[in-house]
């Protein structure tokens, strides 16, 4: 059944009739990134107004692959479990060359993680769940549909936004403006910021079809099929994978000079789908023909305006690094902005959002560009290398790993950036959190549940934690102490982190520091550093 796009109500905003008090945060765009941003801030007690020019969730499935780290962040934001329950967890991936299967791989996750490597879930469900979740914070999240931001000005210590509604225009002031207005960001364009980078000439067709009979044969075993040079689509690439509600995503590479409008027409699309799924009945749900670019802004922070998600960086879709990268932006910015607004940190901390996420975004661009280049060889020599890599991949494990139809989105390490205290550890400072199952006085839980959201000092095994007042400390695999202690279920946690070491986690789960013999002073110094305070000031 097709998704029911119920419009969200437009409510005439107060600003139409009287001046509104200045808002701490205005978020432009109620897509997954803007909504996640509002929820993250609300969970930290920071109110925001979210402005969207539309009043329905994403039309078309669009972003459908949500990576483990993203799901862990969504867990903290209160929608992860709902996404996991509805989403399709991949099981088996198959790579084809022509009509031959080169190899298959099992995506069964490693034991001892709450979330799998990836799920598929249409963007409209993610937005629906985020809107539902945002409604849990009526006093903190002011969601305004059909409120189009048409202009803004940065006044040094605040911003002024001009907004149009069905009932006319109004203005609104906000201390911080967060642009979550997507790849075509009107905010970015208005500011005249250069957004140049590699543009790929290849065009791709996305078609979502609803089919009762799985094209994989068994709907209970979700697979992901990728073809290099398929028999039904000579010389190009093709991808088929499964979404909830018996929806299947087909992604086909087109000719460089293909007519986008013609290619999106049913007359062209239906025969292409028939060539893949045969005579089984299906319903066409959504079609899009696209080109893409790999670009990021030079600076993600411009005075009081902060760019988050696609407005700051765009990538090719191979490797699912668009939506996933944007959610990691939110995770990085949320606690920093909340700390600055609360006066616990200096505004310089916002600058580290740019440093860390620009690095993450560069990594995403590199990986997705490489996947695109592998899928679309530019010269006869590139095509030759690829053809022979495919030939070797039937037997040679090294060649299988060279095949690149998109590297799974992995969180980047922030090792070496200013907020982390350098040190040697099994999980080095800067690394993202690695989840593990725990058991405590209140039953079974996960490390991500106990750690994410606030600075947390975790002692693993034989290490004594100092007494740090008003600070969240937990023990794993330790004897009873005056802080909550958990056992490491099946030893996963201590195997992953060590058994005589303490880690300081940032609110976004990245390791800020590791200690063999932590003193209260060491911990305080590392926390101050992670809050952007220079050693002199700490």
């Amino acid at each position, binding site marked *: 059944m097709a998704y029911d796009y119920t419009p969200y109500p437009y409510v005439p905003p107060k600003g139409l009739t009287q001046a509104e008090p200045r808002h701490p945060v205005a978020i432009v765009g109620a897509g997954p990134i803007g909504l996640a941003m509002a929820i993250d801030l609300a969970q930290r007690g920071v109110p925001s107004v979210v402005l969207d020019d539309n009043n329905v969730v994403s039309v078309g499935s669009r972003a459908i692959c949500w990576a483990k780290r993203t799901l862990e962040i969504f867990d903290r934001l209160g929608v992860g479990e709902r996404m996991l329950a509805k989403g399709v967890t991949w099981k088996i991936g198959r790579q084809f060359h022509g009509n031959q299967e080169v190899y298959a791989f099992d995506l069964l996750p490693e034991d001892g993680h709450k979330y799998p490597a990836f799920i598929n879930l249409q963007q409209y469900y993610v937005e629906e769940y985020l809107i539902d979740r945002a409604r849990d914070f009526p006093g903190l999240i002011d969601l305004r549909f059909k409120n189009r931001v048409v202009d803004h000005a940065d006044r040094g210590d605040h911003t002024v936004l001009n907004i149009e509604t069905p009932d006319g225009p109004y203005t609104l002031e906000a201390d911080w403006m967060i642009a979550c207005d997507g790849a075509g960001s009107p905010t970015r364009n208005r500011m005249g910021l250069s957004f140049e980078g590699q543009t790929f000439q290849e065009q791709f067709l996305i078609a979502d079809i609803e089919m009762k009979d799985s094209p994989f044969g068994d709907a209970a075993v979700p697979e992901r099929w990728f073809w290099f040079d398929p028999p039904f689509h000579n010389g190009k690439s093709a991808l088929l994978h499964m979404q909830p509600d018996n929806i299947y995503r087909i992604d086909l590479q087109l000719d460089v000079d293909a007519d986008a409008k013609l290619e999106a027409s049913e007359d062209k699309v239906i025969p292409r789908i028939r060539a893949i799924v045969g005579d089984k009945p299906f319903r066409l749900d959504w079609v899009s023909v696209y080109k893409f670019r790999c670009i990021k802004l030079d600076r993600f922070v411009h005075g009081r305006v902060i760019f988050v998600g696609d407005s700051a960086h765009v990538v090719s879709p191979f490797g699912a690094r668009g939506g996933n990268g944007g959610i990691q932006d939110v995770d990085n910015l949320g606690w920093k902005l909340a700390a600055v607004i609360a006066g616990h940190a200096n505004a310089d901390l916002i600058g580290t959002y740019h440093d860390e996420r620009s690095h993450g975004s560069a990594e995403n661009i590199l*990986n997705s560009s*490489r996947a695109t*280049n*592998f899928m679309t060889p530019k*010269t*006869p*020599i*590139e095509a030759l*290398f690829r053809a*022979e*890599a495919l*030939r*070797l991949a039937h*037997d*040679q*494990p*090294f060649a299988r*790993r*060279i095949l*690149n139809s998109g*590297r799974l989105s992995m969180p980047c390490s922030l090792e070496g950036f200013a907020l982390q205290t350098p040190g040697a550890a099994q999980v080095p400072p800067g690394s993202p959190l690695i989840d593990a199952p725990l058991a405590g006085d209140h039953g079974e839980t996960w490390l991500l549940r106990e750690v994410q959201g606030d600075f947390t000092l975790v002692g693993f095994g034989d290490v004594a934690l100092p007494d740090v007042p008003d600070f969240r400390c937990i023990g794993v695999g330790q004897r009873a102490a005056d802080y909550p202690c958990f056992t490491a279920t099946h030893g996963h946690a201590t195997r992953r982190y060590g058994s005589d070491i303490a880690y300081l986690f940032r609110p976004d789960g990245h390791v800020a520091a590791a200690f063999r013999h932590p003193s209260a002073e060491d911990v305080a110094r590392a926390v101050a550093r992670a809050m952007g305070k220079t050693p002199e000031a700490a």
Partner: protein
Amino acid sequence: MTIYPDRLSPRQDDVYNALMDAHEGLSEAESHALNARLILLMANQIGDLGVLRDLLTTARGYSHD
């Protein structure tokens, strides 16, 4: 034919892209010449005739149908 252990992972994408970059801007004939020089250099680096013969047999063993 020998199945060789993977020695490129996890830097396989860096390695593959370094190869592609080396061919950037060359004509097809120049690329084949580059490949020949590269194979000779690699043979010298391997420096073991037995290993080299095994690699040649394996490479030759993949059919072109």
